């Protein structure tokens, strides 16, 4: 009796599930994987010029790219005549996926407690299903360095592709230690410390960092001695463990620093400690560009669309900073330093381009330069054979407002150009019922 009932219920459920599926055509659009041949496009390769040609995507990679025609029987051919193909844009600093709603603190996962927390991993807290991720990628932004904020050693940020269902799937394999250099700037209008107090606080903070650094060096010495003698050394010190790649010099330290005097102190500190480094923020980089060039340190700056940091600065100081540094010879990558509006990366780059950086350099600042800075240029940042198939097809210049992104590939997956924001448009543009 029981079995029969269960069977009937099961049969009923199946029917119920099947009816709407077969009568309602509307379904969730999913990404598709396959072999794609994009033909007759203007290819903006970044590394080897711009030309009309063809590009073959297979197994998540650019299998071929050429001016001459490519034949591949198994490929789905997409005619891109009069269209432009660019490599996916890379944002070198954002909180995308680490925060869902800014003012709702329980959805904020970018700032852990404590001053010395280099072992915190942003990748752990990335929400692959954050609503802002599709909103971002439909503008051609495929890859983002998501980073923790706050404290002195804030943790590691991670470069992720904006497609995947787990953080590991999204990871590009580049996690980098992030540090906030002691600041002599004010934290906001509420910060009413005297100039002396500000200086003292910064000095105290730097002393603290130097003490941590001494410990890190000792830790590394013990660690390498233990390794040399093939001893198993068990210790519970995840902070010191996390600093090792920087202490050993296998990875650069990503240092957030903005005011002129602080950039100078940071450069001195880097040279004293003899470490590899990348400067982030660098709002006043234009004031000390010569010193940064001399130190041969690359820079990640942005947002470009921001207000001047001093009241006596020119109105366009944040617009022109990237261009001035680039012209001085610094390798400059750009970031939005945002979260939900990481989609504005191309427009930040465009403003930098307009105010002195030039289009080509601005494009490099969101493609090949970040790939180089984060050590993934063998896989990212340009349209080259063998690289990850992250690219988009556009009707024109992706910086221009009227341009539409018509196709998007991430790791060779054909990604639907859909987000909650486009779906709301689809539903409400001609709302039914309307007023009645």
């Amino acid at each position, binding site marked *: 009796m029981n079995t029969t009932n269960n069977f009937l219920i099961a049969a009923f459920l199946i029917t119920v599930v099947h009816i709407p599926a077969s009568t309602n055509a509307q379904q969730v659009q999913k990404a598709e994987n396959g072999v794609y041949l994009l033909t007759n496009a203007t290819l903006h390769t970044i590394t080897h010029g711009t030309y009309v040609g063809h590009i073959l995507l297979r197994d998540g990679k650019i299998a071929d790219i050429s001016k001459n025609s490519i034949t591949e029987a198994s490929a789905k051919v997409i005619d891109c005549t009069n269209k432009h193909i660019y490599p996916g844009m890379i944002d070198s600093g954002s909180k995308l996926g680490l925060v*869902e709603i*800014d003012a709702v603190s329980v959805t904020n996962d970018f700032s852990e407690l404590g001053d010395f927390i280099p072992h915190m991993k942003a990748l752990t807290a990335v929400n692959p299903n954050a609503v*802002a991720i599709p909103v971002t990628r439909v503008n051609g932004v495929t890859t983002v360095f998501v980073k923790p904020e706050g404290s002195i050693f804030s943790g590691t940020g991670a470069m992720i592709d904006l497609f995947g269902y787990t953080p590991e799937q999204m990871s590009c394999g580049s996690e980098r230690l992030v540090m906030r250099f002691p600041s002599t700037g004010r934290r906001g209008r509420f910060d009413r410390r005297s100039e002396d107090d500000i200086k003292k606080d910064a000095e105290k903070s730097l002393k603290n960092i130097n003490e941590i650094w001494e410990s890190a060096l000792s830790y590394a010495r013990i660690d390498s001695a233990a390794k040399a003698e093939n001893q198993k050394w068990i210790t519970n010190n995840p902070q010191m463990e996390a600093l090792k790649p920087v202490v050993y010099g296998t990875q650069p330290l990503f240092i957030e620093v903005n005011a002129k005097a602080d950039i100078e102190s940071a450069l001195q500190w880097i040279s004293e400690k003899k470490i590899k480094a990348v400067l982030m923020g660098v709002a006043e980089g234009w004031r000390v560009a010569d010193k940064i060039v001399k130190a041969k340190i690359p820079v990640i700056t942005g947002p470009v669309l921001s207000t001047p940091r001093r009241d006596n600065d020119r109105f*366009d100081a944040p617009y022109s900073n990237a261009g001035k540094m680039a012209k001085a010879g610094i390798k400059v990558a750009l970031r939005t330093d945002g979260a939900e509006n990481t989609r504005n990366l191309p427009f930040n780059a465009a403003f930098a381009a307009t105010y002195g950086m030039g289009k080509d350099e601005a494009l490099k600042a969101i493609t090949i330069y970040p790939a180089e800075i984060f050590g993934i240029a063998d896989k990212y940042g340009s349209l080259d054979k063998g690289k990850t198939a992250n690219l988009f097809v556009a009707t024109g210049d992706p910086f221009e407002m009227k341009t539409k992104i018509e196709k998007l590939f991430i790791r060779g997956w054909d990604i639907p150009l859909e987000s*909650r924001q486009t779906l709301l448009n689809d539903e*409400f543009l001609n709302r039914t019922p309307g007023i009645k």
Partner: protein
Amino acid sequence: MKKYFCIILSICAGLLQAQNLLIKNGYVMTITQGNKENMDILVTNGKISLIQNNIPSPQGYTVIDATGKYVIPGIIDAHSHIALEVVNEATNPVTAEVNVGDALDPLDVAIYRALAGGVTISHAMHGSANVIGGQCETIKHRYGAVNPDELRMQGAPRTIKFALGENPIRTHGEGNRITPSTRMGVEQVFRDAFTGAQIYQKDWDDYKKGLRKTSPEYSLRNETLVDILKGNILVHCHSYRADEILMLMKVLKDYGVSKICFQHVNEGFKVAPELAAFGASASVFADWWAYKFEVYYSTAYNASILTRNGVVTSINSDSEELIRHLYHEAAKTQRYGDLSDDEALALITINPAKQLGIDHRVGSLEVGKDADIAIFSEHPLSVYTIPQVTIVDGQVRFDIKNDPDDMRMDINPTEKFSSFYETEKDHESSGCLKGVAEMLMEDNYTRYMRFKYSQNHSHE
């Protein structure tokens, strides 16, 4: 100090002198009467006196060569908080009696930065802490003036700020434990205030008719509310969610108020047909969302959906940052929604003018209108454009060819250099919840730093 003083003097001397102008040979985008190539504009006594080809240069007129450049009406921001000393009188859910016009700051360098983005007029608004906040001031960006009165746009209609949703709820319900602590409470605060104003008016009417021996107690708050009910003050209401927008339209209908501009109105797209039927207008962000829960279900297509549904729509800044590139914000409606050039430019010119009740004077390039004009290097909706010259009432207030780095008028003599600010001023703290925001909206890190410094430096 001496150097700064010279700068101030040069601004005053160079800019305050009355100018008659001839803008030569530009691509003139009138907004209301189409685009005209190789066109001249004559500016006499602060007004546009002629728009025509090849106007011969009259004696005593300064000529501005606009060859190859784009000439548009000065951009109007229907929602801003620049040039204000204070923004929120967050002491009561109803503070109709206060007026931000009493707290104008003509020395705010943000005015100059707005001019450098082609913006000639902004609506300096009270904040959003209260259900019925203070009255607002429509200002002209006459940077260089030191008298606050010189910022006012004389003759512009009175406006007042209302606010729905999280901000009044958090300020009063959560903060002070008084109504409203829900959107239900917000509705009743309006009804209570308006009914009280009706009774107040009747008491005075009775007194004037001799039906009452003693005069009622004078209340500036009620006087202002009565003026709202009479339609003498335009309502601009901070709002986000569809339900609260519908609520306010119902309340206004019940009390016979017909003119309303919804501000922010992130979910306006959901009730666009209702907004159009009421005759309400909308002033929105191009793409801001997700900074708080009530803007989570937003879309950057909002402006275009509203426009397509016949709602008079503008794009505003509510920010010292966005106000510098409203032309770029307007252009986003071409990425998200395919608005035409004319439609997109209307969002920052004639439409905000309509919302402020000043469209007969500004918002388009027409003979007889105020000479508020912005000149751009490229098409103003192109991301590669650079504002060149901004003119307010025939006065050149920004000229990129004569643009000193330091344009401050307000200098702190105790500082060796102007302070460097580490964190950028974010949306709510420079906008609607200024003052209140620092307590309510700050991020974890700022909260932590504030705590730290308030502990270390409690003696201050």
